[in-house]
């Protein structure tokens, strides 16, 4: 039986103690959940376990023998693999190449080193079949949705049949149905003796999935309990040291004025004939499965991929989406689902990221004004509660959830009339989520119209006035969110698919 023991692991970054005296003993054949708010140090721990980061102090014992890892490759040889929080695929390579990267089978014979593509394809097919995932093998992964990329990422980690598997929020981009196949997979692996560490912000997943729960608060462990004892209240208390409550928050009625009207919008091979109206102060959710065209619709509305036909009317003015800049000018912005590739400029500072879309307004005569920019950052940091040590440091030094908040803040700072949110709560802890909901509610009270796409259906119930159902690129119906329960919503999503 595999065991993994950590003794007094600490990791210090300039200005932050990400992990402090962390000790734990994990056993194989089980799934161990690791929870903690954004910036608690979870990803730091994963990076230490994969050799990507060296601990400042502390020892790691694998099967009761001390082991030092120098690199992720080193870790993989030792049998430790990881599904990282941020996707780390090579966008132009196809699924086979990504999954087998570094282990592509080669032919023997005349020309040594020649890749055996037949064998590679066979291996990949077998692996995917074993994992019960279906993916287009020869498509460059850049053309896959985030959810499917996430599946590729998991398959890639599994390709080496590791003894220890670290999963850093692998399901944050997946709907519950899609996540379920990941769970079954992890369960099977655990039953075969693997040691699985599973990080998530979706606490409801933990009861069904995990065997033990370990919580981190500001880099310090607040204990490990068996999952049977981990009630939601207990977990929240372990993470925050206080109570966080959720209830349906949206209680105002939308204003009578229409801010966004969409008529017969079509983009070939993505969605067709989409029509709806969004009123001022209204929050509309879009529910649908992966591949239903939700993201494509939002991107088209925002001008990222212009639609082929149809009308978009904002505040009574017809705006044909041509580019993001133009739609931003019309008062409509989108927060993209993929924060690393579309949302953030990882090389730039948090300040530069946060102010990028609103720079024109913050910079009189095209000359930047640092004080004004700092005011924006300070305002967003306050409104969204971003844990930000240094606004001048590259945004990539923030924890995943805090990066997500920067993405929201950056478009919020443009003071839009209509906001399109694509998976806005991806990877943020429940307290931050409650806060983000409050922000959304406040914005809608102030008259903004919001369109939210989320794979977490209960979120839509808490947050929206109305829910539109989308299937195969068409809107198939709409319902009042206030009078719905999760089961009916789920059922409607699954209908005829």
């Amino acid at each position, binding site marked *: 039986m595999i065991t993994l023991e950590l003794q007094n692991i600490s990791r210090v970054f300039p200005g932050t103690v990400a992990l402090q005296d962390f000790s734990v003993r994990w056993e194989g054949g089980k799934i161990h959940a690791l929870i903690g708010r954004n910036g608690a140090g979870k*990803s730091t721990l994963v*990076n230490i376990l*994969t050799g*990507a*980061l060296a601990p400042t102090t502390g020892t790691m014992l694998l099967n009761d023998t001390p082991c030092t890892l120098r690199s*992720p490759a080193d870790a993989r040889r030792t049998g430790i693999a990881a599904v*990282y*929080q*941020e996707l*780390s695929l090579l966008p132009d390579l196809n699924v086979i190449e990504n999954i087998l990267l570094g282990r592509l089978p080669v032919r023997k014979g005349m020309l040594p080193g020649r890749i055996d593509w037949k064998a590679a394809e066979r291996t990949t097919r077998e692996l995917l079949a074993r994992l019960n995932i279906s993916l287009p093998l020869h498509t460059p992964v850049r053309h896959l949705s985030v959810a499917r990329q996430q599946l590729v990422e998991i398959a890639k980690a599994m390709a080496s049949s590791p003894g220890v598997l670290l999963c850093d929020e692998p399901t944050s981009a997946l709907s519950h149905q899609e996540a379920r196949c990941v769970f079954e997979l992890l369960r099977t692996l655990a039953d075969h003796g693997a040691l699985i560490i599973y990080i998530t912000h979706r606490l409801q997943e933990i009861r069904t999935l995990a065997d033990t729960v370990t919580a981190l608060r500001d880099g310090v462990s607040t204990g490990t309990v068996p999952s049977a004892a981990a009630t939601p209240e207990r977990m929240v208390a372990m993470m925050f040291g206080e109570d966080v409550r959720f209830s349906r928050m949206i209680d105002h009625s939308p204003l009578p004025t229409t801010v966004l009207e969409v008529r017969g919008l079509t983009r070939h091979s993505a969605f067709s004939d989409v029509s709806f109206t969004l009123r001022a102060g209204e929050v509309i959710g879009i529910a649908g499965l992966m591949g239903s065209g939700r993201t494509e619709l939002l991107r088209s509305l*925002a001008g*990222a991929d212009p639609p082929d036909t149809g009308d978009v009317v904002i505040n009574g003015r017809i705006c044909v989406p041509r*580019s*993001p*800049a133009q739609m*931003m*000018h019309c008062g409509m912005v*989108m927060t*993209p689902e993929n924060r690393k*590739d*579309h*949302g*953030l*400029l*990882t*090389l*730039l*500072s948090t300040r*530069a990221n946060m102010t*990028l*879309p609103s*720079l*024109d307004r913050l*910079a009189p005569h*095209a*000359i*930047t004004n640092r004080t004004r920019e700092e005011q924006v950052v300070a305002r967003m940091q306050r409104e969204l509660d971003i844990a930000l040590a240094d606004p*001048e*440091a*590259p945004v*990539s*030094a923030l924890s*995943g959830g805090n990066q997500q908040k920067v993405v929201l803040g*950056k478009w919020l700072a443009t003071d839009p009339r209509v906001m399109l949110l694509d998976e806005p709560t991806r990877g943020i802890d429940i307290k931050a989520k409650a806060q983000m909901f409050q922000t959304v509610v406040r914005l809608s009270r102030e008259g903004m119209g919001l369109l939210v796409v989320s794979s977490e259906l209960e979120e839509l119930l808490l947050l929206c006035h109305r829910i539109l159902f989308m299937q195969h690129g068409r809107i198939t119906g709409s319902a009042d969110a206030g009078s719905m329960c999760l089961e009916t919503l789920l059922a409607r999503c699954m209908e005829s698919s």
Partner: protein
Amino acid sequence: MSRRPHHFILELVLVVLCITLAVLAPGFFSAENALNVLRNISMQGIIALGMTMVIVAGEIDLSVGSAVAFAGCWTAYLTGTFTGTLGWPPAVAVPVAIGLAAITGFLLGSLTGFIRMRFRVPSFITTLALMTGLSGAAELITNGFPLTPFPEWYNALGGGYLAGVPVPALVLLCVFLASSFVMNHTVFGRSVYAVGGNEEAARLSGIPVGRTKTTVLAVTATLAAVAGVLQSSEIMSGTATTAKGWELDIIAAVIIGGTSLSGGSGSVRGTMVGVMFLGVIINGMTLLNVNEYWQHVVRGILILTAVLLNRAHVTQEAFREAAA
């Protein structure tokens, strides 16, 4: 864009280098030699500042060396035509010729940008084609022989002094001040970093990607034309064979200055230090009578060392970047 202690490593190395040379090389530590170094680095320096913006924006311009030769020949050819065939006085002909050479540079850079954005041809390819093309065009204009239509006072531009400082060095200073203001304090400068860092995220943030990239390419091509004019003034002729291989020296200076070839990060201040670094090394080795072949070898080694020094601190971050 932020200033951190490790950003000054190269300055430190430069200072150490200067002190060493002051001790070792006779005549290094003198005002005369300093001005000499300044003059030698100015023309490449002017272009390197533009190249920094191009590289930060995620593009490259390989045509700058040929563009210098071409601009010199083109100015000489136009001056000759205006004064000869058209009978204009030189006082009119020369400024018009210079203006036209600069405009030509601007248009060529814009063309590269247009092809890059419209047809998605990488600037590497377009400017590689331009590099050969312009070099050939310079030969065609001059018929293989230097053109010498310039009046004597023309030499004041590239060879003259203003308040004791070489004119090209003053131009370099102006370009440095302007480019560092643009890159650090304007919306345009921020956009350059953004499009080079992540083109798609920049586009989604409403940044005019095409306009930004085209502008930096056009500005750099214009700066190359300006350097070409200065160069022709210094040697008082339009010569097709000057400035061969400059593009590599210039790119080396930019990279030494800490700008990343993959775009999105770097600074004109760093480039300025990089340019001085190369200038001082060459000057020092010449003063020390180092054999020219050895000079090349030493330069190669130093370029690599400087970049390694610059990179040492990034490695850790890049590692996390890949893993996080």
